[in-house]
């Protein structure tokens, strides 16, 4: 309470100027249209109608939601123009978690790179590591042993499950089913314990590395995973009982945050948002990577493009991921868990005492890093939020010249003004929650 500056100073400090939603009279017309969520080209009359209501500005109120607010989606700030409870315009303001990861990525070697990118989408860290390593491996031209590929797939699908459980928990809590928070976290914790057993960490693992994975699966992992998978189906049915058929849940999520397929594609939305509109685009099926063309699973597609569809898609994607995990457990190949190329993967620690060459390789890999041939590449995977891409430009050195991660939430957030317009404030909470943004990959 003992600040040297008063409240005026603080208000000025937190003012984001033109990044904020400003009064109608101060907003240029095309920006006004964008804030009302106009996506596709519309006729002059429609555009005029949208931007002119209401006539007098003092019927409306501009309020601020965030960046610190109880909805657990991180530091997203949404400015809303309200007439009563109805949302007329909205504008998401982001950047509150900008960490300069792309700049830091240029300073880290390719072996250190996954530690950086894994913290972008922190609910699904394996996917960030995967896309980064796949990009580097494509630049080098590495071919991975099958066990590494299947291990990556196993971990990624388990991670998809834990991310979707997180969604169930936070989505439920935002809409009011507070006990969902506890249920979702109960399931997620089981998966995180399996991760801890396999990788050593519950989150932000830095386990998927260039050339494969960091270590082999521990003994008894099949039993742990299968025991977990056997426990989940009755709990998922519990969620169905609690939410799916329940009238209150349906009233709160059906026809809330609606978006059509055309608009979603125009705005660059991917993942459950795009699939909820009816477009059956899932990179695991349409442009397969890893070993997804060898496993059997369904792509879950909605039809109404509303929040309920997105919730149902994510719930069923948990079931599909369980199918894939079971197949991974049954069909996990034996062999190397990382490529044996000495220039890329460090030697096992025990060999460092015996062989001079191993010691030198270890030293060079961990101080200088391995060099990657010049070129550029854009690799994509299907993360729980959509299309996660990694664009790397290499200049032939041991560090990326430019590393850019296409975060799906960053692009998905552009659908927000469109989804929020015309709804109530409570619907705004439901819609934001159904987009499931993770601010780490929005702001990077």
């Amino acid at each position, binding site marked *: 309470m003992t600040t040297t500056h008063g409240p005026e100073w603080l208000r000025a400090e*937190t003012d984001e100027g033109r990044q904020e939603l400003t009064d109608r009279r101060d907003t240029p017309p095309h920006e006004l249209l964008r804030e009302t969520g106009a996506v596709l080209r519309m006729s002059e009359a429609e555009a005029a109608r949208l931007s002119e209501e209401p006539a007098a500005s003092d019927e409306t109120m501009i309020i601020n939601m965030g960046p*610190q607010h109880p909805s657990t989606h*991180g530091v997203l700030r949404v400015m809303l123009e309200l007439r009563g409870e109805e949302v007329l315009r909205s504008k998401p303001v982001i950047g509150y*978690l900008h960490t300069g990861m792309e*700049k*830091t990525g240029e300073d880290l070697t390719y072996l250190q790179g996954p530690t950086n990118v894994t913290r972008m989408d*922190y609910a699904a860290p394996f996917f960030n590591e995967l896309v980064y390593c796949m990009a580097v491996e494509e630049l080098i031209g590495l071919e991975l042993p099958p066990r590494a590929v299947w291990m990556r797939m196993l971990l990624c699908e388990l991670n998809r499950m834990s991310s979707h459980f997180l969604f169930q928990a936070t989505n439920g809590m935002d809409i009011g089913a507070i006990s969902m928070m506890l249920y979702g976290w109960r399931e997620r*914790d089981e998966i995180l314990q399996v991760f801890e057993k396999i990788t050593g960490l519950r*989150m932000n693992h830095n386990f998927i590395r260039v050339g494969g994975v960091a270590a082999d699966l521990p003994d008894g992992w099949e039993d742990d995973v299968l025991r977990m998978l056997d426990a989940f189906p009755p709990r998922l049915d519990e969620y169905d009982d609690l939410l799916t058929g329940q009238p209150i849940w349906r009233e709160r999520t059906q026809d809330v945050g609606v978006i059509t397929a055309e608009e979603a594609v125009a705005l660059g939305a991917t993942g459950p948002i795009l699939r909820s509109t009816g477009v059956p685009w899932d990179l695991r099926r349409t442009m397969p990577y890893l070993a997804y063309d060898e496993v059997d699973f369904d792509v879950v597609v909605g039809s109404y493009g509303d929040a309920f569809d997105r919730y149902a898609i994510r719930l069923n994607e948990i079931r599909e991921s369980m199918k894939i995990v079971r197949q991974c457990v049954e069909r996990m190949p034996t062999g190397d868990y990382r490529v044996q190329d000495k220039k890329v993967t460090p030697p096992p620690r025990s060999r460092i005492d015996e062989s001079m060459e191993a010691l030198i390789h270890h030293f060079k890999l961990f101080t200088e890093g391995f060099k990657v041939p010049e070129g550029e590449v854009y690799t994509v995977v299907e993360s729980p939020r959509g299309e996660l891409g990694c664009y790397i430009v290499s200049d032939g050195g041991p560090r990326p010249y430019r590393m850019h991660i296409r975060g799906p939430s960053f692009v998905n957030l552009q659908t927000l003004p469109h989804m929020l317009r015309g709804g109530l404030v409570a619907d705004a909470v439901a819609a934001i929650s159904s987009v499931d943004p993770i601010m780490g990959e929005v702001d990077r």
Partner: protein
Amino acid sequence: MTGQSVDGDPREHGLGGMPHNFFTGTLEDVVRWARQNSMWPATFGLACCALEMMAMGAAHYDVARFGMEVFRASPRQADLMIVAGRVSQKMAPVLRQVYDQMMEPKWVISMGVCASTGGMFNNYALVQGVDQIVPVDVYVPGCPPNPQTLLHGIITLHDLIRTGDIVSRREHTGAGAEVHVEASTPGEQPVAITSSR
């Protein structure tokens, strides 16, 4: 505090077994006991650490045992601000504003390495340690810290409050107690905490 209890201090041994239903003590003791046992955290989850903080609030690690499961969204109703995650340049004034809106007595736990020192991101975008903006009482290292590590940090803070260390320190220096907690993994012996005086 003493009561007519068979075992002694009701703070240690609870109220069971007390032949009379009153106990005496100094006012400071009672106030500290109340503050310690019903500290309400403010929601300040920023990044990855927020997920571990929420895991701590969930069923498996259950911070409700310590009276802390109510994460208050309004800073006016909160006592404790757990800064969970990296603080960017844009977020810093917001953090300060929320801290100022909290009522005394208030405490700050800096959770994770990004909040404590900037973590692995030593660059232009992050404030290198939230103690540049607000006074911090306990630093909890880890990236992200296990929910048990965070609980350890919270219990440390509770002990500091119970012994009266923190309030007296703040009166003199206006800063946090600056206690550092070692990251503890499950199964290890409890770590002795010595605060730097």
